[in-house]
């Protein structure tokens, strides 16, 4: 009998002690965690101050990607209607976020600093197809960098 009470008290003691200690979890999604500034999350494609895309479709990110998650198709802009800062631009830019291992090599390889990995990491979708981020999606990221 005494033994049982002692064990109960010990257990509850642990519980009550933990109640007063600082918490390890956060109340997601009401509260969100702060990430390190160099956290590698979802990609974005940047534009310069004139609104021209920085990406010229050189394909180096595609070449360096160890997971083959990137597909780039370049094209020549119509004269007088530049899309990027030069006459070459990427007409298709797709990142397969399921394949991506968020290593950041694309960001490192990019000669124009166009592709950047933002801290945004809320990657979930109902279908695999929705996990392929196209150019439109990458140009309008939820978090900029």
């Amino acid at each position, binding site marked *: 009998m005494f033994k049982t009470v002692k064990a109960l008290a010990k257990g509850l003691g642990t519980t009550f002690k933990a109640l007063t200690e600082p918490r390890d979890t956060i109340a997601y999604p009401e509260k969100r965690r702060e990430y390190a500034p160099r956290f590698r999350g979802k990609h974005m494609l940047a534009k310069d101050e004139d609104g021209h895309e920085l990406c010229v479709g*050189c394909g180096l990110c595609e070449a360096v990607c160890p997971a083959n998650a990137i597909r780039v198709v370049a094209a*020549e802009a119509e004269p007088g209607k530049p899309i990027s800062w030069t006459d070459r631009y990427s007409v298709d830019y797709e990142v397969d976020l399921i394949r991506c291992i968020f290593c950041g090599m694309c960001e490192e390889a990019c000669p124009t600093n166009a592709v950047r990995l933002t801290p945004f990491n809320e990657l979930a979708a109902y279908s695999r197809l929705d996990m392929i981020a196209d150019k439109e999606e990458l140009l309008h990221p939820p978090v900029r960098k």
Partner: protein
Amino acid sequence: MIVDAAAKIGIEVPIYCYHPALGPLGACRMCLVQVEKMPKLVTGCTTPVAEGMVVHTRGPAVDKGRQGILEFLLINHPLDCPVCDKGGECFLQDYTFRYGPPAGRFSESKLERAKDAPISDFILIDQERCVLCQRCVRFLGEYAGEPQLMLKGRGVETVVAPADDRPVTSPFSGNVIDLCPVGALTSAAYRFKARPWNQVRYPSVCPHCPVGCPVTVTAREEHVMRVEGRPIPDRDWGWLCDRGRFGYDFAVHPSRLLTARLEGRPVPEAAALRQVARWLGEVRDRYGAGAVGFVVGGQHTVEDAYHLRRFAETLVGPGVQLAISQRVRGYLPPWLHGTYDDLEAADAVILIGADPYRAVPVLHLKLRQHWRRKPALPRWGVGVRPLGRETLPLRDLVVRPQAMAATLAWALQRAAKDHPAARAVAAGLGAWEPEDPAAAEALGHVLVASERPLLVWDGHDPEVETVLRALASVRGDRPTPVLPGFGPENARGFEWAGFPGGYEALRRLLEQAASGAIRFLAVWGADLMREVPDAGLVEAALARVEYAVFEGLFPPQGGERFGVWLPGAAWAEEAGTWSTLEGRLSPVAEAVAPPGDARPVRSILAGLARALKRPWTPEAWDPMVGTEAGLLPRPQRPEAEDLPSIAAPPPWRLAGDQLYVVAEADVFAQGAPSEILAPRRPAFWGRVHPETWAAFGSGPSGGRLTLEREGRRWTVSVGPDPTVPRGLLFLPIGVAEAPVYQIGEGPVTVAQPLEVRGG
């Protein structure tokens, strides 16, 4: 040279200006090496190796020299590799990476020059990226003999630019893209399409003319991105003509057949195959296999032809009629078929009717190199127009149309009076003499007396075959190699697969079809109405056969006569084997998948067999077995044969309102349509002498002429060309807008001069 010796033992010496085919120049200074006992660094590309020479290709002095050269080259280089089409396969990138300085010291602003400026419809120049190696200048100026690019300016302002500011028009201009070691000369059609690392390269053979140049097809995401030359060590430099280099877009041409059609209506492929099987089964069961005819042509591989033959023999039955589509009436016996080695060793070159520059351009390039090496050898051109060019000087013997075989037979008989074969072929000539007997006699002497002549024949006049046979007989054991400058492409491959070669087989088949003996005619790939010399016979055959089936890439001319059209797989959409001009088999790769409902022949045949309810699968066959590293075996020269004699040609007669139509192969006019090559299509299909044009047409640059024969009229565009003799009208083979074989060769009346274009 030191660089060649180093390459032979696998040591890399960086080079820009040197190319083994172009010879040493020493312009770029990239190949500096250290030779012991020489005070300074020397250029490896201009220094011949010598006995006892000690060369250092690395070391502090060499590395410092290379770093200095690269630093100079990069002073005015824009460093725009991300947007440069050469990026990834650029020797400036590679060498800078390997041998270059860690950083440049030049901080001033760079010189700005022309960027992406077109030098022709196909090629863009970026003078900022140029390293002035002069490979392009020397290739066009020396190798091809058409100096259309040149260096302009002095010192730091030197640039490569088109000569006289006129666009580059050489048919070999595309080679400068391959030759350029940096990104200065790039292809307009390939601009920004892909990068070297995200496409796959497939070795293949060019399908656009009988030469069959080795090419590399690069493809990305099921699209052919570009075609490049594929050098084969010690055999081929990998030069291409622009037809082959830029003509690859035919596979995605809007007129391509992508769905099967039954009586003109699009139907599912299976329905079309069921219908074909019903017809085939009906004809076979009721009239026997002899009432079925198969004609092969177009862009089919050797394996395709083999499957067709096996299908015909096993499922239709023995006795089925086979033939290869032909564009000329002549046929070259396989035992006379020469090789490029024969050209290398030739001590005389005789062009018989063939103008390689137009018909088989890369052979022209080979003939020109032979001339550059041995300019003093006898070279003859026998044709209805002068065949010599500035880039390939010949002694011209111009004969009247129809007099080609007679002139050759006369020349042969003059040079070998006592030989029975020569006497036999010339027996029918009587007292006839060619227009220029002295020249003909000299030609006959060259034909008979030279040790190793090389002949190039255009196949236009079938009687020339008899003269060639007689010539071989006269020459006895000395070889008489002939290169056929005529199509169809892959013809020797079709023969290797078991189809009977030559125009005779095709004519017999068509005559049987026209007479009603053949009731089911399947045409695989060939556009008979457009390319077969006797278009009237084709018309009669197609009108008479009960069932005609067409398989191919583009709707055929007279297509309404074919009950079923089946879309076929094109070149680069099916792996297989292809034969080249010298009768060598070479593999072609499958680079992309066939679009739409297009299928390779073996799939179509398997589907037909299923519809016929007969088990049949295409059997594996290796065409390389029995060849000598791909070279098709040459039969022995037959022993003394009975040769027919050549009749004297009828006297030349042409009424004042008549033109004499001559068909001629032109690689830029014939073949699969290409949108990239549209600017290079001849402005006018027909060519006449300027005086003839002045007599019939109006306007200085050309226009339309209406030709009339036996009540039928055709309107073709015609332009003046000073190389054409008076009274003749040259029309290209295989062009729907100028159907030379429907008009028919020979005299034709000009109905009315009508000016449409000009001024």
